[in-house]
């Protein structure tokens, strides 16, 4: 049996998984920074809005988020008809944003209150305090759990196959229907997931060593 033949579709799936994970990782982190900051802010409206988003998204299975975005959103508003790849990125970003927000909030709240007060006493306004005093310290605290979440995100991304996006998982299933070799195929799929996620954990180890 000629395996070389089946490798390209698997690699293509891996490439797409990598792309949607990078996109969702970046967008999710941005959403997380904005909402996490809002959740830790002194403004109750900002806290309220952020809480609703975070609690709602965390309470809904990611499968439902993906299915809803792909099948239900266009019924509500035809303009929100997205391609499979775009839906995958939107769904994963929305999901990642909620978890990243909690991680960022935790980082901000772990910075001692005196830091913010010292900046306040110097006459720095809220956003200057955040940018120059709170964020640099909060991000150090948030990076390790953030990295942990990104690894989980790579694995959760396998669920995008539910909307028919040919990511690594779906590519694996397609290949097995053709070659009838699930053992070898899924071993390769697993190995490719590892190849994607392991550098992220290396990044985390490197970061923690740099801080020490």
């Amino acid at each position, binding site marked *: 049996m000629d395996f070389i033949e089946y490798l390209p579709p698997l690699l293509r799936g891996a490439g797409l998984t990598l792309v949607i994970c990078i996109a969702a990782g970046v967008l999710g982190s941005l959403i997380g920074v904005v909402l996490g900051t809002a959740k830790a802010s002194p403004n109750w409206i900002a806290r309220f809005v952020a809480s609703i988003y975070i609690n709602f998204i965390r309470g809904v299975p990611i499968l439902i988020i993906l299915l809803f975005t792909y099948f239900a959103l266009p019924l509500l508003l035809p303009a929100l008809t997205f391609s499979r790849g775009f839906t995958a990125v939107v769904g994963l970003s929305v999901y990642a944003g909620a978890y990243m927000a909690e991680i960022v909030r935790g980082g901000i709240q772990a910075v001692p209150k*005196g830091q913010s007060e010292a900046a306040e*006493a110097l006459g720095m306004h809220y956003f200057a305090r955040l940018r*120059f*005093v709170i964020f640099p310290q909060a991000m150090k605290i948030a990076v390790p759990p953030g990295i942990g979440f990104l690894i989980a995100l790579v694995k959760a991304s396998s669920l995008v196959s539910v909307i028919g996006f040919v990511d690594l998982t779906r590519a694996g299933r397609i290949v097995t229907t053709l070659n009838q070799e699930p053992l070898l195929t899924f071993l390769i799929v697993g190995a490719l997931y590892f190849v994607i996620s392991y550098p992220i954990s290396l990044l985390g180890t490197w970061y923690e060593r740099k801080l020490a």
Partner: protein
Amino acid sequence: MIITVEGLHKSFGKLEVLKGIDCEVSVGEVLCVIGPSGSGKSTFLRCLNFLESFTEGQVTIGGHNLTGPKTNLNAVRRDVGMVFQGFNVFPHMKVIDNIMLAPMKVGKVSRTEARTRGMALLEKVGLTNKADVYPSTLSGGQMQRVAIARALAMEPTVMLFDEPTSALDPETVGDVLDVMKTLAEEGMTMVVVTHEMGFAREVADRVLFMDAGVIVEEGTPAQIFESPQHVRTQTFLSKLL
């Protein structure tokens, strides 16, 4: 008068911590605030730059009413330096950057100008050789002197100190007190909450004794320390000896 406090009340929930404080500070005056733990000294000090909001009363500082409708709090705070018991230096910045931050980001001073000012202040607090290290390598006394330099970098007209030496090892207390003494001699207006009675006696123009959220007694150091009029003051001072 550079500071005027009238009928200041402050409650945390049901707990009334300040029960009507009236007090004035004139330009160049050094006012020391003493009193037992929990009497509201820190709260009082923090009301002076509105780090703590208050329930009732008026605080006017440098002509600005803190609760006035047109008051820009951040602008007022730029003229009021504050030094905390726990230093609160920024651990992610080198010493010099700690000092340069507010002048550059708030005062819109150029980097070169901020650095020159910062180095001069480090010299003043005796830490020129520590400009480019991170605070974690400093002793408590050194950190507190960095915090003082950082507050001075905004060229404030008033300095507030909340037990600046209480968290320090005895060996390093003296260096911090010396810096504060120099500031006082240069004519800085200072409000100092302290347990250092020696400092209060030597440097203060006036001492204010607080207990249970009120000013029980105030007077010159000689009046307060040699002949306190109130029983509560006498009791407090006798416990210190």
